[in-house]
């Protein structure tokens, strides 16, 4: 019974339909949480006693940085599943994740840079945290470029999965970089083992935005994966039928 369930789930046609139903159910909560997060982050939370209002960049910067790593792990995991079990759907999720992950990495870098200018007095320093995050961006761009360079979709998926898996080594480096090396970048405040050293009024919008970004990734990756399905299954009957109706 379980086998049957997984096979149906992984069938492109079934996935396409199911994803179409799921997308609005993810997008609407995402929008609501974003609005709540913006309200609590920009209006309700008090200014920081050291950084004034500039710290509000954190509500974009930190969730974006978390997503940049989370999506990478999902992409590499999906790539591995595609590589081992040859599940087409996993390949599609892996490749659909790359541009979204690249976007969040770009956002983490840019907002960090904009935040760094008034706080550190510089847009950029070549320290471990910033450099390893920049490498993450190049890994994403490498995945996208490699996928585009190989015409055969299944072959491309295998190559991409291997590149993504090798790049996983960068994830713990990003995470621990602020502890292993001296840096301008501040240490973790939320994921510390004892109590988080952040006030509740700032933690709430941060977590709201973090969940909103997770939901955003979920529905955007489904949107992209649906396009992948259409592209790969363009010769199957149900796709032609669907295309003729539009």
């Amino acid at each position, binding site marked *: 019974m379980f086998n049957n369930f997984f096979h149906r789930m992984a069938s492109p046609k079934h996935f396409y339909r199911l994803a179409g139903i799921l997308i609005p159910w993810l997008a609407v909560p995402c929008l609501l949480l974003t609005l709540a997060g913006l309200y609590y982050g920009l*209006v309700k939370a008090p200014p920081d006693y050291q950084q004034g209002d500039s710290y509000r960049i954190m509500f974009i910067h930190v969730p974006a940085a978390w997503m940049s790593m989370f999506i990478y792990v999902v992409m590499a995991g999906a790539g591995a599943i595609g590589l081992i079990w040859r599940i087409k759907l996993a390949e599609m999720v892996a490749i659909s994740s790359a*541009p979204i992950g690249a976007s969040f990495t770009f956002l983490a870098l840019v907002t960090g840079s904009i935040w760094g200018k008034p706080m550190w007095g510089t847009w950029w320093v070549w320290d471990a945290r910033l450099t390893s995050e920049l490498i993450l961006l190049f890994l994403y761009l490498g995945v996208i470029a490699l996928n585009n360079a190989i015409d055969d979709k299944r072959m491309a998926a295998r190559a991409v999965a291997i590149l993504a898996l090798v790049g996983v080594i960068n994830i713990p480096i990003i995470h621990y970089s602020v502890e292993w090396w001296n840096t301008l970048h501040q240490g973790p405040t939320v994921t510390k083992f004892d109590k988080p050293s952040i006030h509740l009024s700032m933690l709430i919008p941060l977590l709201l935005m973090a969940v909103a970004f997770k939901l955003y990734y979920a529905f955007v990756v489904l949107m992209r994966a*649906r396009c992948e399905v259409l592209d790969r299954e363009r010769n199957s009957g149900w796709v032609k039928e669907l295309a003729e109706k539009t």
Partner: protein
Amino acid sequence: MNLEEFFNMGGYAVYVWSSYGIALLVLLVNIIAPLRQRKKLLHGIAATARRRARRNA
């Protein structure tokens, strides 16, 4: 807090609002891109099907 204070962001307006603006832009582009791609794919597939049907007729 009044509206002017809100937009001024304690003197950090340029930094805060440009961060939020860029984020909004990037997130919107990521939604629009697959919407457009889907439309393009479906149109392309339909056009190919029509061409084939004509050739076989």
